[in-house]
């Protein structure tokens, strides 16, 4: 892991909320130009890790390094030009239109006397086109469906034009078709624009399918990290999630596919007497 170049990494971090310590001595690196996905059971600290990487949570020990320097020492605005972050289930202000919301992604590049440059205009239009929401530009965000709304938020994060983009559970509350749509979009952005993407996901099979780099966490520690094929094994799923399973090849992509084991049935229940 040390040999892979990494602009964003956490070193020996202790992550804690006011009274609760979530992780201790946590070290993790995001390989450049990867689509890194963090998985793990509920409350394993994966969203907390993402917040620390985005400079939204200050580690009580250790540090997050951005380009080799402590991210906490960099001004908020400067970090916002390098690292973008989409928190879980954001709420749009009442009545805001799609174009308005996406345009807000330009904030770290703007100023009091530089409110809307030609670059801003071009980049916002591009972000809406890339996410397929250009047709919705003048619609109020609160009238959109869940999947459309999530694409609008991603467009806003794209308009920020950061080489690194962190997404906290971007598929929560979406139905399966919209989940796939959002993940396909992320994969395309990663491939076509060469951005480094980091996402927290719940669904192990989706993670294995889309990630180029997978980080498996449990109880605030990284259990395994690497290519999905190396990470997702029956033994690891048992260790991380406590779930007995078989791992087969995904018939669509050849990536690992986790099939939970069925509980053994004795065969004599519910039998007619």
């Amino acid at each position, binding site marked *: 892991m040390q040999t892979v170049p990494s602009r964003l990494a956490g070193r020996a971090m202790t992550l804690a909320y006011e009274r609760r310590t979530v992780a201790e001595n946590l070290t993790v690196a995001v390989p450049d130009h990867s689509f890194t996905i963090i998985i793990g059971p509920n409350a394993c600290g994966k969203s907390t890790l993402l917040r620390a990487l985005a400079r939204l949570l200050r580690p009580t020990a250790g540090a997050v390094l951005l380009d080799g320097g402590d991210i906490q020492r960099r001004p908020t605005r400067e970090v916002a030009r390098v690292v*973008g*972050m*989409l928190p879980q289930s954001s709420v*749009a*202000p009442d009545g*805001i239109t799609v174009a308005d919301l996406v345009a807000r992604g330009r*904030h770290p590049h703007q100023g009091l006397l530089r*409110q*809307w440059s030609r670059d801003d205009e071009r980049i916002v239009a591009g972000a809406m086109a890339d996410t397929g929401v250009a047709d919705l530009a003048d619609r109020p965000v609160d009238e959109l469906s869940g999947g459309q709304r999530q694409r609008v938020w991603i467009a806003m994060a794209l308009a920020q034009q950061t080489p690194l983009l962190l997404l906290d559970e971007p598929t929560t509350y979406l139905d399966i078709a919209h989940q796939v749509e959002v993940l396909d979009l992320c994969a395309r952005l990663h491939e076509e624009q060469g951005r480094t993407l980091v996402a927290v996901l719940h669904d192990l099979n989706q993670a294995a399918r889309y990630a180029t780099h997978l980080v498996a966490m449990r109880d605030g520690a990284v259990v395994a990290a690497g290519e999905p094929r190396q990470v997702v094994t029956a033994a690891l799923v048992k260790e991380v999630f406590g779930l007995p399973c078989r791992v087969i090849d995904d018939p669509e992509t050849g990536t690992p596919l986790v099939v939970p084991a069925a509980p053994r049935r004795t065969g004599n229940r519910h039998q007619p007497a």
Partner: protein
Amino acid sequence: MIVLRPPGGRSLRLRPRALAVGAALTLLAVVLGGLTLVGVDRPAPDVPAILAGGGNPADRFILLDLRLPRLATALGVGAALGLAGAVCQSLLRNPLGSPDVLGFTQGAATGALVVVVLGGGSLALGGAAVAGGLATGLLGYALVGRHGLAGHRVVLVGIGVTAILSGVNGYLLTRAPLTDAARAALWLTGSLDGRGWVNALPLLAALAVLAPAILASGRALRMIELGDHLATALGVPVGRLRPLLLAAAVALVSLAAAAAGPVSFVALTAPHLARRLTRAPGPNLLPATLLGAALLVAADLVAQHAIAGQQLPVGVVTGVIGGSHLVWLLAVGRRSGRL
């Protein structure tokens, strides 16, 4: 949307509708202000001549020492309340998060009442009002905690604090000598009667300093409406900015209370009306400021002339307007599931 791009890489983004609303509100304030100066029941003969230094002494007194400072106080108080209300509602992401609901206004009133009871000049009154408002703000901040700033908690804590402070204010009134108590009771409803330059100037000076600073952070406030995490990720130092903006809003509300008493509901109402008029998302700081100023001058005209031969305190008029607006807001908000 109009975009101006003068040479030198600068660019400005303007909404035509917001511009029109701003111009209309300014015009309204000017017309109503002119009406206040000229007078409705006893017209001063020649306002421009008196302002230029002419006129007879009696007319000069009425205009320069009575009507002009009263108008200046009304404009200042309305602008301060409108601006502070817009800042608070935006920071707390809550349409009810206005300074009067949060208890800042009552806190300022308590500070001022202490001075009324103990005896002291206008400067002490102003100082005590600001101290009372800021102390209430700090208390509320401590009670709510760092994490619960958005949402119902703030409003509930504010209602509790307001209730406690009304009790304190009532107690202070019983301790005051009878004449002072009568004056204080009038002051507590919010009144512009007999306001002189000594009332208007501290507020206008504070507005001259704080209003440009607050207006310049309008862009950051717009980001904070997206949530603390997202705003931070978009480059706004929320943790540093929020206490500063809250303190500035509390200072404006407190100085407004020192100048005219705790005039109710302008801070709650003005930002809503401004947003409805401009139809623009975001804090609408400047429209809310202008609307607050126009609203208070209008309310004062009504207060002076609604009942012939009798002057109402302006706070009664804003209370009736704002109270109805609050009820309407709760009804509509409940229906759309936002409150």
